[in-house]
């Protein structure tokens, strides 16, 4: 149980980190943009956008995976578009696993970022403008750092959620060792086996260690920023 990781297990761990890392990195800007729109703009129908963003939380993951399959599967329009414009294939590829994770993590990230964006003291933005900073620089040097705890929390939540993502991933891109078999999929396979308990426990232990590692890393970032160094 406490034996060092086998080569296969290392492969799974690295793939999980890659999928989650890419998912969070890709989603963060989108999540920030959506949080910004929700926090700062007023327009009719805003609550509908808000509800759409929450959908991956509310729908069972397999349905999200199924919808992704409809959109990106062999006949899906989005899949063909991605393929034609960027040459990116997602079906049965790790990129698809990252896409599924990203979709599932999005609502968590948007909420966390939005919470802090709404708490930012707008008068400080006025002060920055008055000191000569344009809107973008004001954003980068005042708004973003003040919302940093929310961005960080969003990234941590999103990363954790991605590490645990199972239902949408397996429904969308199936369980392909070395390509889409992330840690949860490996755990699920083990759980299906009579007598697979020991393996499940071992793999779950690895997941626990990963999440602990991610949290320690985020705490270090927070401490750095609390000391007055900037996170951004």
């Amino acid at each position, binding site marked *: 149980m406490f034996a060092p990781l086998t080569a296969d297990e290392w492969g799974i761990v690295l793939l999980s980190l890659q999928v989650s890392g890419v998912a969070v990195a890709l989603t963060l800007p989108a999540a920030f943009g959506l949080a910004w729109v929700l926090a700062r703009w007023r327009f009719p129908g805003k609550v509908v956008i808000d509800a759409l963003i929450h959908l991956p939380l509310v729908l069972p993951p397999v349905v999200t995976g199924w919808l992704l399959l*409809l959109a990106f*599967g062999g006949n899906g329009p989005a899949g063909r578009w991605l393929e034609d414009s960027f040459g990116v294939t997602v079906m049965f590829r790790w990129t698809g696993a990252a896409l599924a994770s990203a979709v599932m993590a999005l609502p968590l990230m948007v909420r966390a970022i939005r919470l802090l964006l709404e708490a930012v003291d707008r008068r400080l933005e006025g002060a920055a403008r008055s000191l000569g900073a344009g809107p973008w620089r004001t954003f980068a040097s005042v708004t973003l750092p003040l919302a940093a705890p929310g961005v960080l929390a969003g990234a941590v939540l999103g990363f954790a959620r991605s590490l645990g993502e199972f239902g949408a991933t397996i429904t969308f*891109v199936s369980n392909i060792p070395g390509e889409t078999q992330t840690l949860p999929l490996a755990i699920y396979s083990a759980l299906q086996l009579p*007598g697979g308990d020991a393996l499940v426990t071992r793999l779950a232990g690895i997941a626990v260690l990963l999440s602990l590692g991610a949290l320690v890393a985020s705490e270090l970032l927070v401490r750095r920023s609390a000391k007055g160094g900037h996170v951004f």
Partner: protein
Amino acid sequence: PAPKPPTVLAAASLQESLTGVAEAWVRKGHPRPVIAFAASSALARQIEAGAPADLFFSADEDWMSYLEQRRLLRPGSRVSLLTNDIVLIAPAGSNVRLSAARGFPLAQALGPNGRLALADPDSVPAGKYAREALTSLGVWPQVHGKMARAENVRAALAFVARGAAPLGIVFATDARASTAVRVVSTFPAASHAPVSNPLAAPARATNPEGEAFRRFLLSGEAKAIFRRFGFGTR
């Protein structure tokens, strides 16, 4: 007082047929059984954890044996009731022609990037049978790296139905259920152990209605209904 309805834990792949049988049972004036459909593995673990169930209808023998070894089944209640075929399927619009026989060109039919959709061959019943059949036909090594393993057999079916995979392997009953796929070939019965869906009563079951429903499931009337949904019966 009205008899308490029995609680039945059944593999998700039995949903349609078992619901049909339960309807017939209700028409005879019995209380409607409460049936929970989920993965056999989850149901078996629930029985192991002491869930109050009166019948367990599994998708494969392995989980049933797991419970039997732990003395969690009522002795003598285990019956292998249903049989099934495994089939090779393709999207309805595909014109691929193949016959599942020794060394048939499965990998070639998949093309360079196509994947073979099937339930996880390591753990899910439909996948385990598929692996056994492909191995005995000598084509397993060709497709080993070209599989899309699904969480359950219906998800494998969906990959083919959505055109995400050009070929897949599912139970005959699943293939019948979808108009978006067609059966390309049925695997020879000799290429794999007989597919069977066993039924048993957990040792803790006490509801007499459960035993009554179990006996009904073994009756010719129930078997006829199962056959209508494509199962074989024993």
